[in-house]
């Protein structure tokens, strides 16, 4: 007897809806066992992870703050991935956006620059992110270079460029030579939405981006083109859609969004440019994009959910003294189950009896 995965004739919509529930159920079961082995009360632990962060406005704000860059980047990436363009370098575009926007903040520091500063920073950051993303896109279209490799490698270039700037020309002169710019002026800082909290304008922008992406994909010809080129390249060619043009377009848009997310993070929660402004947002966003099934609303939920596990993980560390590694195991198990269950949408389990008569004869 053999258990095999068999491709379904068509995707199962029931499973598509149920699969995340199964995944979460399996995660909870696995984690309950793990917590019990660790000698922690599983109910209290799960409460710390999932419920506690949702019970006060502080944690809710923090979830939104954490999810903002993830969602913005993931939306851009989903456009790329839908069009079969593999932008792995959002991290680099995020950093370049942060650098470009910071340039205005650094140059206007201490001057009486007006309210134009922040919008200008946003525009420049988005433009820089887009241009940076166009490098791998053009290399792909013109020379056939793998965009996966080139976009990934440009991450390190961006990282080192930022490093150079904050250790050299942009270093805070009063900063004892430490690698950071001075704190941005108030006009160069993203406004907060709630007094005393950390929720900022960026979260609103992220919501607008989600809405715009939903409209683009659902209601415009361009969105249709993106999906057709990705799903059926041959059909797209017959339909006269230009796949190369779409690679350029989706890379530019996702670069712009990553760049915008970069400057929002720097001019928002961080407040100055320094190395390590991104704890891997550009890469985590890839997970968010797929967890959200490349669907704008799905990405919003996935981003918030991943943020919840980060915040919950910290609260579990504090309240339950659960080591950080367990949080990482927890996130890993969750992603594993989500992706594993997703394979049931397109595949199903089947028992195969290679030699049924002999097998039944022995029993």
């Amino acid at each position, binding site marked *: 007897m053999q258990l095999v995965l068999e491709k379904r004739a068509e995707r199962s919509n029931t499973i598509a809806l149920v699969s995340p529930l199964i995944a979460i159920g399996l995660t909870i079961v696995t984690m309950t066992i793990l917590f019990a082995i660790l000698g922690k009360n599983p109910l209290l632990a799960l409460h710390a992870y999932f*419920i506690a962060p949702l019970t006060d406005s502080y944690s809710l704000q923090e979830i939104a703050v954490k999810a903002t860059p993830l969602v913005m980047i993931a939306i851009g990436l989903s456009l790329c991935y839908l069009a079969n363009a593999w932008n792995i370098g959002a991290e680099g575009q995020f950093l370049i956006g942060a650098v470009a926007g910071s340039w205005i903040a650094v140059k206007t520091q201490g001057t009486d620059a007006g309210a134009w500063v922040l919008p200008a920073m946003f525009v420049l950051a988005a433009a820089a992110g887009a241009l940076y993303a166009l490098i791998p896109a053009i290399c792909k279209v013109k020379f056939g270079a793998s965009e996966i490799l080139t976009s990934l490698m440009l991450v390190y270039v961006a990282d080192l460029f930022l490093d150079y700037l904050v250790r050299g020309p942009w270093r805070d002169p009063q900063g004892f030579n430490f690698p950071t710019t001075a704190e941005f002026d108030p006009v160069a800082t993203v406004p907060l939405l709630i007094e005393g909290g950390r929720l900022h304008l960026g979260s609103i922008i992220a919501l607008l981006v989600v809405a715009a992406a939903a409209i683009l994909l659902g209601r415009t010809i361009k969105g249709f083109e993106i999906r057709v080129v990705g799903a059926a390249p041959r059909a797209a060619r017959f339909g006269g859609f230009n796949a190369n043009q779409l690679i350029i377009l989706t890379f530019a848009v996702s670069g712009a969004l990553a760049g915008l997310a970069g400057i929002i993070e720097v001019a928002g929660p961080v407040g100055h440019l320094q190395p390590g402004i991104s704890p891997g947002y550009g890469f985590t966003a890839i997970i968010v994009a797929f967890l959200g099934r490349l669907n704008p609303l799905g990405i919003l939920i996935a981003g918030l959910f991943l943020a919840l596990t980060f915040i919950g993980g910290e609260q579990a560390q504090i309240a339950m003294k659960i080591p950080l590694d367990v949080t990482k195991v927890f996130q890993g198990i969750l992603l594993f189950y989500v992706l594993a269950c997703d394979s049931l949408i397109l595949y199903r389990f089947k028992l195969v009896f290679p030699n049924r008569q002999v097998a039944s004869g022995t029993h």
Partner: protein
Amino acid sequence: MRKSVLALAAGLLLAGSVSAASAADKLKVGFIYLGPIGDLGWTYQHDLGRQALVKELGDKIETTYLENVPEGPDAERAIEQLVRAGNKLIFTTSFGYMDPTLKVAKKYPNVHFEHSTGYKRDKNMSTYSAKWYQGRYIQGLIAAKMSKSGVLGYIGSFPIPEVVSGINATILAAQTINPNIKVKIIWANTWFDPGKEADAAKALIDQGADVIMQHTDSPAAMQIASERGKFAFGQDSEMIKFGPKTQLTSILDTWGPYYIERVKAELAGTWKSEDTWGGLDSHMFAMAPYTNMPDDVKKLAEDAQAAITAGKLHPFKCPVIGQDGKEVECKGGANLADGQILGMNFYVKGIDDKLPGK
């Protein structure tokens, strides 16, 4: 998806009885760690300090830590989480937590903060650090004595003042033994990356260095030096088990006494915002046993340690000559001023290299 999680978790909760952990009347003390605790290195030493604290005052306090907190936008949240969990004294143990700590400190004036290795303070925010350059000076003496090739290998982390002053102190000491001593410097641009550190050690040895010094955290360089039959110094922690025939000494971070002192002050209600920059005399760090060297070198090291502890020897005694051959302005009387060392961004004469970013 999130809703379903809530429903499931809520169901589970209803099924069982949840009792909130009883809040004892102990003082809550929080720690933010840069790395995982592991079993050696920067964060490990801070955690040893925390453990010493628990051992000493465990009946009066309760400690909590968050490990592996990145020095970016997440830091402020992590610190605030500790505040919200009721911690009244919070130690943030890496330079990159400076601005986040300051922001949270301004928001919670009744909570006290202690930030390690930074320079921004407030009414409720102290800073603390150690004069590791004193230890580096002793290492420089030993290195110059032990090197046959006259070339030292130095693995730098980042070209910040703490690291640069360490290199300068090393060379100034080595020059008193061998005026022609050479140093090869490789910037690993990381605090902890065993692969990179090992590569750096190999490259330095290939360039003729026979004593390896490091300002990075892992024992990788020690292991490479051990394989190649060279000498090396540990960093932050005791690393002799990685090179029993290799380690000459190691600068050991010993935060325990400081943590105990500050928590006692907090308990007594006498905590004040202060700037502590402790040297060998204040036990902010210690030297590991001097091993694998002849007795005369050991004596030289011990004498230097005693002289520095007693304040008779200052590694940056004027005149200090910069790389450009000009004398560095002497702002501290007989020695460079603390501020000059804390902000050091030049090499001294005799270093045949260019400081990155200069």
